[in-house]
C-alpha cells in the first residue's frame, strides 16, 4: 500500500515509517525543500528507568490545550543481538494514550549509538505541517545522549534519579552540563534533597546569558512538580526567543545530520563488503571508503 491513506493519521504514520526505514540513498532522495521548523522541540533524556516516559505523559497532558496538539517520539533501544526491540515507552504513557490530541510513536534506536535513532533529524522534520504545535522526543539514556539531543531540540530536560551516586560521577565528567532544565525525578525516594542541592550547584555554574537552568523535583503522584516543569519549559522558550543564534542552531543540526548520514553510509559500504576493505591499512581503507561514499541515487 503506497498510496496516501484517506485517514490523515495513517498517512503521517506511514510517512514516519518510510523515513525511519530509508537507507542513505533514499534519505537523500527524500529531502524536499526544507520545511521551516515551526514546532517547538523538547528533548527528554536521562538514565534508563529514570522515569522519562512517565514524566512525558504528565507533561504532554499539561502542555496540550484547546488548540495545542502534541506529538511524542519515544526511542527505545534495539537489541544488538536480534536487532529487535521491545518498545516499552508507550505503556508508561498510558494516561494519555487515549487522548486524540496526542500522537505517540515508538521508535527503535537501530544502529544509532547516541541515544537517538537513524534519521532522527528527518523524523522531527516530518512532524511539521500535521497540525502539531510541539514534539517531545524521548531519547535512550546512554552516556552521551545529552550531547546529541542537544543539537536537535530547543529545550533539553535531563531527568535524574535520587538513588544514584552516578549523578556525582557524571557531574565530574561534565556530562551534566548540557541541559537547560534539570529534573530530580522520583523525589519520593531517599536522597532526593541531597541530589537536588548538588545539581543546584552545577546549574548555577552553568548560568549564562541570563539563563540559569532550574532544578525541579517531581514525583509521579504529585501534579505540582510537573506544573513547575511545564512553567520552566515555557520560561526557557521565552528566553530562547531572544537569546538564540538561529543560524548557529541550523548549522549545528546540519552538521549532526551530515555526520549521521556519512557514518551510516560507511556502515552500508562495510556491510556490503566481504571484509577485505577492513584488511587495508587505515589510509587505504579511508581512500576506499571515500571512493564509494556517494551512493547510487535512484532517480
Amino acid at each position, binding site marked *: *500500500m503506497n498510496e496516501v*491513506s*484517506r*485517514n490523515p*493519521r*495513517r498517512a503521517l*504514520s*506511514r510517512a*514516519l*515509517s518510510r523515513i525511519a*526505514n530509508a537507507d542513505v540513498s533514499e534519505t537523500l532522495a527524500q529531502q524536499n525543500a526544507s520545511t521551516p521548523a515551526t514546532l517547538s522541540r523538547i528533548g527528554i533524556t536521562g538514565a534508563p528507568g529514570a522515569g522519562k516516559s512517565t514524566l512525558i505523559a504528565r507533561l504532554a497532558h499539561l502542555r496540550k490545550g484547546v488548540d495545542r496538539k502534541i506529538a511524542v517520539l519515544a526511542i527505545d533501544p*534495539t*537489541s544488538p*543481538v*536480534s*536487532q*529487535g*526491540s*521491545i*518498545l*516499552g515507552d*508507550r*505503556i508508561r504513557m*498510558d494516561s494519555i*494514550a*487515549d487522548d486524540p490530541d496526542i*500522537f*505517540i*510513536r*515508538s521508535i*527503535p534506536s537501530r544502529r544509532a549509538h547516541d541515544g537517538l535513532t537513524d534519521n532522527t533529524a528527518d523524523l522531527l522534520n516530518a512532524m511539521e505541517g500535521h497540525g502539531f504545535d510541539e514534539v517531545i522526543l524521548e531519547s535512550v539514556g546512554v552516556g552521551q545522549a545529552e550531547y546529541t539531543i542537544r543539537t536537535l531540540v530547543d529545550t533539553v530536560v535531563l531527568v535524574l534519579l535520587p538513588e544514584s551516586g552516578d549523578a556525582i560521577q557524571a557531574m565530574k565528567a561534565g556530562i551534566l552540563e548540557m541541559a537547560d532544565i534539570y529534573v530530580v525525578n522520583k523525589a519520593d525516594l531517599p536522597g532526593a534533597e541531597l541530589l537536588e542541592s548538588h545539581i543546584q550547584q552545577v546549574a548555577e555554574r552553568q548560568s549564562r546569558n541570563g539563563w540559569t537552568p532550574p532544578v525541579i523535583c517531581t514525583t509521579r503522584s504529585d501534579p505540582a512538580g510537573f506544573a513547575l516543569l511545564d512553567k520552566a519549559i515555557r520560561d526557557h522558550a521565552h528566553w530562547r526567543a531572544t537569546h538564540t543564534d538561529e543560524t548557529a542552531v541550523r548549522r549545528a543540526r546540519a552538521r549532526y545530520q551530515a555526520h549521521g548520514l556519512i557514518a551510516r553510509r560507511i556502515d552500508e559500504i562495510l556491510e556490503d563488503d566481504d571484509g577485505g576493505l577492513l584488511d587495508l591499512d587505515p589510509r587505504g581503507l579511508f581512500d576506499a571508503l571515500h571512493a564509494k561514499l556517494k551512493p547510487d541515487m535512484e532517480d
Partner: protein
Amino acid sequence: MSLNGKRILIAKPGLDGHDVGAKIIALALRDAGADVIYTGLRRSPDYIARVAVDEDVDAVGLSILSGSHKELVAETVRCLEELDASDIHLFVGGTIPREDQDELREAGARAIFTAEMPLDDVVAAIDADLAS
C-alpha cells in the same frame, strides 16, 4: 528467519487479566528481530486499532483468554477498516476452541495460535505470513 524491520503490536482486548502469554510472545518476536509494542491489559478494539495505526504496525496479535474471541476479533476488524487499516495483518492467540477457529479466520484472522503450539512454530508462522 528474521522479522527485522517488522513492527508488531501485541494487544490484550477484553476482560481477562492474564498477560504472561502475551509477554512471552512479545519477547520471542523481539528475539526473532521484530520491533514489538505491547498495549497492556483490557484494551478496547477501538483503542487497539488506533494504536496499530499510530504505530504503523505490520501486524496485530490479539491475546484472548476470556472466551469473547468472536466479538473481539470482529470488532477489531471493523475498527481497523474504519481507520483505513485493513491491510494490517491480524493474529489471534489464546484459548480458542477448535470449532471457533474457522469462524475467526473468516472474520479476518490470518492465523490462530493456541497455548499448546510451540513458541518457535508461532514465530515461524508469523514470519512466513508477513513475508508473503
